[in-house]
C-alpha cells in the first residue's frame, strides 16, 4: 500500500541539529525572526497582488478625483494652485487611510491557526507585530511614490529643494507608521477581519477629513476649525506643504501646531507611537495568550 513510500526513516531525516544549537536570544535572532516573518508577508502580497490596490490604484484614483472634482470648486486664499495644495494633502490622506491594512493583516494573523504554531516555537513573540509594521512601511513607501508620480503627471511642482522634499516624505511616512500602530490596536482588539477593516475606516475617515489635508480650514465653523488646528493630520500636512514649498494657508492660523508644523508633526508622531506601540504589544500578548 501507499505506506511503503514512507519507508525511509532516519537516514533521510535531517542533518543532526541538536536543539541546543539553535540561537534563541539576542538582537540578531530578533532581527532574523522579523526578516523571516516579513518575507512571509511579502509572499502573501505576491499571491494576491490586488490587496495592494489600496496603496497603488487607490492613491491614483483619489488624487485625480480630488484635484479635478474638488479642485474645480475650492478657492485658496491668495489664489494659489489647488493642485500644489492638494498633492501633499493626498500624500497624508492615502498614507493614513492605508494603515487600515495593518489592522486587517494583524487580525488575520491572530485569528488563524498559524499563530498557535508561532507560539509553540522558541521565537521572538512580538516579531509578528514588528514584521507586520515593517511590511506595511514598505507598502507605504510604494504608496508615497505613487502619489508623487501621480502628482508629477498632472503638473504638481514642489519647490523646496531635494533635501527638504526627502524630509517631507520621511515625516509623512513616520506619521503613517505611528498611525499604523493605532490600527494594529484596532485589529488586535476586534474579533474578526471585517470588524478590523470597518472600525479602521470609521475612525480614520473623520480624522482625515476634519483636517486641512483636502480644503483650507479658514472658512470652517470656529469649533470645527479648532478641531482641525489641533488634529495631528493637519500638523503633518502643513509640515509637508511647508517642506515641499507648496501653498500652506494654515500658516496664517495663530496656534502653536500651525506655526511650528514640523515640530508639531514630529511630536504628534512620537506621541502616537509611544501610546499605540506598547498598547498593541499588550493587546497582542493578551490575544496570543488565549
Amino acid at each position, binding site marked *: *500500500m*501507499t*505506506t511503503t*513510500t*514512507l519507508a*525511509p*526513516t*532516519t537516514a*533521510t*531525516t*535531517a*542533518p543532526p*541539529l*541538536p*536543539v541546543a*544549537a*539553535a*540561537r*534563541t536570544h539576542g538582537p540578531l*535572532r530578533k532581527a*532574523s*525572526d522579523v526578516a*523571516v*516573518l516579513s*518575507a*512571509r508577508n511579502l*509572499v*502573501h502580497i505576491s*499571491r*494576491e497582488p490586488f490587496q495592494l490596490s489600496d496603496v497603488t490604484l487607490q492613491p491614483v484614483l483619489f488624487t485625480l478625483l480630488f484635484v479635478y472634482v474638488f479642485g474645480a470648486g475650492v478657492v485658496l486664499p491668495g489664489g494659489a494652485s489647488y493642485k500644489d495644495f492638494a498633492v501633499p494633502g493626498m500624500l497624508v490622506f492615502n498614507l493614513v487611510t492605508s494603515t487600515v491594512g495593518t489592522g486587517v493583516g494583524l487580525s488575520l494573523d491572530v485569528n*488563524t*491557526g*498559524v499563530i*498557535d*504554531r*508561532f*507560539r*509553540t*516555537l*522558541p*521565537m521572538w513573540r512580538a*516579531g509578528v507585530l514588528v514584521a507586520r509594521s515593517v511590511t506595511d512601511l514598505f507598502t507605504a513607501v510604494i504608496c508615497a511614490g505613487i502619489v508623487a508620480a501621480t502628482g508629477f503627471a498632472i503638473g504638481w511642482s514642489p519647490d523646496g529643494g531635494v533635501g527638504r522634499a526627502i524630509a517631507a516624505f520621511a515625516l509623512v511616512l513616520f506619521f503613517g507608521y505611528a498611525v499604523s500602530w493605532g490600527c494594529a490596536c484596532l485589529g488586535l482588539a476586534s474579533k474578526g477581519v471585517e470588524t478590523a477593516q470597518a472600525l479602521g475606516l470609521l475612525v480614520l475617515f473623520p480624522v482625515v477629513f476634519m483636517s486641512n489635508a483636502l480644503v483650507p480650514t479658514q472658512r470652517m465653523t470656529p469649533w470645527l476649525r479648532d478641531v482641525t488646528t489641533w488634529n495631528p493630520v493637519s500638523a503633518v500636512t502643513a509640515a509637508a506643504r511647508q517642506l515641499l514649498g507648496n501653498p500652506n494657508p494654515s500658516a496664517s492660523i495663530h496656534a502653536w501646531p500651525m506655526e511650528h508644523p514640523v515640530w508639531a508633526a514630529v511630536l504628534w508622531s512620537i506621541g502616537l507611537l509611544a501610546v499605540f506601540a506598547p498598547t498593541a504589544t499588550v493587546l497582542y500578548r493578551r490575544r496570543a*495568550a*488565549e
Partner: protein
Amino acid sequence: MSELMIEAEGLVKRYGETEAVAGVSVAVPAGTVLGVLGPNGAGKTTTVRMLTTLTAPDAGWARVAGHDVVREAKAVQARIGVTAQEATVDGMLTGRQNLVMIGRLSGLRRGDARRLAGALLERFALADAGDRIVKGYSGGMRRRLDLAAGLVTRPPVLFLDEPTTGLDPASRVRMWGVIRELVTDGATVLLTTQYLEEADELADRIIVVDHGRVIAAGTAAQLKAQTGGARLQVTLTTAHPEAAAALRRFAAGDVAVSQDGLHLRAPVTSGSGLASAVVRTLDTAGVSVDDVEVHPPSLDDVFFALTGRPADEHPTPGDVDPESGAGRSLATREQVLPA
C-alpha cells in the same frame, strides 16, 4: 526506570463557570505513547494546550521534558512538537516555504532549514507537493505537513491533537505509520483521539477523559476487558418483559433497555457465533427478534461501560465549544435532569 517526559498533576482550566479541565494528571515515560481518549469537549484539547504552553492552567502544574510549562515556557517550546486540530500552517505559502519558515523561526540557519524542509517533505511523502500552495492540499496532506512542521526542531516530545480526525481510512493508516516511525526513533508522544481503535493501535497506555476528568486509565487490553470486548445490540419487533433477562447470560455487564423496550444493548466478551445463539435463546423465550448486531468495541462502549451513558460523539455543531467543553456538559446535564 525511565524518566518521565510529560508529567502533570491536578491540571485545572476554567472558562467562566465551566471547568473544561477539572484536575487531570498524567505521567508519560520517555519513549512511550499515551493515548488520551474522549469525546468532543471532554477537555482533551485544553489539556494539550496547557501542556504545550498555549494556555496557562488555573491550578495544578505540569513539566514537559523536565521543564515547568508556566515558568520555563521557552525551554518547553524548544523541546516539543505540536500538531493541533486546527491547521497551524500558512495556507498561502507552499509546504516547503512553511517548513523553512518554521525552521528559521526555531533558530536554524537558512541552509539547515532548507535541508531539513526537503528531508521532511520526502519523509512525509510530500516531496511532489512541496512547492504547491498549501490551500490546495488534501486533508491528509495538510495533516502530514502539520506533523512535519511539528518535527522541524527535532523535538523529543510530541503532542498530536486528534491527528487523524476527519481523514479517510487510507490517510489514517498512513498517518499511523508515520507516528509509529517517530516512536521507533525515540519520541515520546501524547496523542488525543476519539477512536478507541486508534489508541489501541498506537498507545502504550490510555487515559479516558470525560468532563475534564480522567475516568479510567490503563492499557488498551485493560480497557477492553472493562468494556467486555464487544457490544451486542438487539432490536425487537415488539417489546418483551423477558428479553433483558434472556440476554443476561451472554452479557459481560449490565443489559441496557431503551425506553420503548425495543432496543437492548450489552457488553459481551466474545463475538463469534454469538448472533445465532442470541436469536435461538430469544426465540425459546418467546421474544420476536428483528435484528441482532455484534460490534467491536468503540469509544461509545468504553463510555457506556465506564459511565453508563453514551459518549455523545456528535454534539450539534454550534452549541459546543470544543475548547471549553461548555456546551457539552450543559447538554449532558439537560439529558440527566429529566430522568
